[in-house]
């Protein structure tokens, strides 16, 4: 019985359910809510792409923002400087980030653990330095302001969309692209390829001796994670009305790492939950005090000790305990 139940639970198309729940936000909330919603959705994709490395493959990256940044710059430069349409610039951002991830990953997977982490950080600082200094292409410290929105006028023809602002339409547009990306990532994680990645996470030595080419799989995961981070970056550049070197600063890598751990890296939906909670808390707490980093630190401290599996891990173990109590009462 219980196995049939869990099989059923696996069949719920969560991506679709969450997409449908998030869709009416522009009609129900304020413009500011839609603004936050867009940010959460983009961060969710960014964090899930990181979790392909962290929670699935067991690789700790301190420089994941590099691929987010490459995606943002590729898309921003193509659209702003060259007037390329979004339909081309968006996939190009994914490909550009993937190519850079291939280069960086090729070096990184040769090292293990802390050396791997430090090298990812080094690559992200290289990207930051290039973004900051290469004036002719990246705009240097001025960045690339006013990246145009994709053409979303066709949306006005849809019933109920006529009164939506451009920001609202971009929210819905992003939500669709992010939902598709998340569905793809979920598919990959549950595929035989994804299973091989989990064997590497649990025990790389043993993984090699069931016939897994550990470095090749790590590199493949690195490239995929980079590509999806690049897509998130492309959306962010448009959402934030410009691409700036600040985006690629290393503290952004720490932020997305915190989201992932906060939500629970052992769960597919952990990172999105982390993104939601972190963005919402940031908004709430900064209205009362300027000491947001202090509260963030304190919160992480409590979380790491109380719920080492993140928020979803805490919910999961709480739920299991309740069910045990329930079963005890039945018996």
């Amino acid at each position: 019985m219980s196995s049939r139940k869990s099989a059923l639970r696996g069949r719920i198309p969560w991506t679709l359910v969450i997409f449908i729940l998030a869709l009416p936000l522009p009609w129900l909330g304020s413009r500011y809510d839609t603004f936050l919603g867009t940010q959460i959705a983009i961060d969710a994709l960014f964090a899930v792409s990181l979790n392909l490395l962290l929670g699935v493959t067991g690789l700790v990256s301190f420089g994941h923002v590099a691929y987010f940044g490459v995606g943002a710059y590729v898309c921003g430069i193509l659209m702003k400087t060259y007037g390329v349409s979004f339909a081309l610039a968006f996939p190009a951002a994914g490909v550009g980030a993937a190519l850079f991830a291939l280069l960086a990953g090729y070096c990184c997977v040769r090292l293990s653990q802390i050396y791997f982490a430090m090298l990812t950080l080094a690559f992200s600082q290289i990207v930051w330095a290039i973004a900051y200094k290469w004036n002719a292409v990246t705009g240097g410290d001025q960045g690339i302001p006013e990246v145009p929105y994709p053409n979303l006028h066709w949306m006005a023809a849809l019933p109920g969309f006529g009164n939506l602002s451009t920001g609202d339409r971009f929210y819905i547009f992003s939500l669709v692209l992010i939902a598709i990306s998340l569905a793809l990532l979920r598919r990959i994680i549950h595929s035989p390829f994804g299973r091989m990645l989990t064997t590497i996470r649990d025990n790389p030595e043993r993984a090699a001796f069931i016939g897994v080419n550990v470095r090749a799989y790590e590199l493949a995961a690195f490239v995929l994670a980079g590509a999806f981070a690049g897509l998130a970056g492309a959306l962010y550049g448009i959402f934030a009305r410009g691409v700036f070197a600040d985006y690629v600063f290393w503290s952004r890598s720490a932020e997305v790492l915190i989201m992932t751990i906060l939500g629970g890296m052992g769960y597919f939906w952990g990172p999105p939950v982390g993104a939601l909670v972190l963005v919402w808390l940031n908004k709430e707490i900064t209205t009362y005090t300027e000491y947001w980093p202090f509260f963030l630190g304190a919160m992480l401290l409590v979380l790491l000790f109380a719920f080492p599996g993140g928020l979803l891990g805490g919910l999961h173990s709480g739920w299991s305990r309740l069910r045990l109590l329930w079963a005890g009462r039945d018996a």
Partner: protein
Amino acid sequence: MLEVRRLRKTFAGFVAVDDVSLRVSAQAIAAVIGPNGAGKTTFFNLITGHLKADSGTVLLEGRDITGAPPHRICRMGIGRSFQRTNIFARLSVFENIQAALLAHQGHGRNFWSRSEDFYRDEANALLASVGLEEKARTEAGTLSYGNQKQLELGIALASEPRVLLLDEPTAGMSARETHETMHLLERIAGERKLTLLFTEHDMEVVFGIAQRIAVFYQGRLLAEGTPHEVRADREVRRIYLGAAA
């Protein structure tokens, strides 16, 4: 089946394996014995590609496999278990076996299908043959030590090896578990026509099932032969077997 010629490995001047040559014929059950630090595990690691030899060659069915990486050697038909149990702790028992089957059958490049639909029957059959069918859904890391050793054997068998290297398969087991494990190994080796090479400290186990025994001492191969020959070897008696024989 498996042949090692003049294999040598040093670590910063310390000679761990010193000019060892050994032949294991097909479907033999052979043991490698010797005191701690005699070079048994290093010897295994050289065969399976986890360490690179300074010199010497390893041949599998006449084919030179020296210096190939572990994942390739595994695919060529050598399976192994490790001295410290080596399983995928956060996967279920079933998933452990299934992952090994997926890797061996070359499905790792499949990004699209649902992994849980693969090899259900094969994985369950393997679990049954190592006696873990009841624990299929258990998280592997929570199994008892003996069960983990059984699981490790199942993982090794999933890659359909022709030669199986077992590093202390009964270490840390009770007398009863040891007996059961060796019985299981003998049965599986017979059924699957495996060539078995194992290290072991328990002399009762070694002399109970091994057809050939190689004795290591300070990195060198001290003696090699049938249990009877090894037991009669004066040098072996003096240095290693002592009162045990």
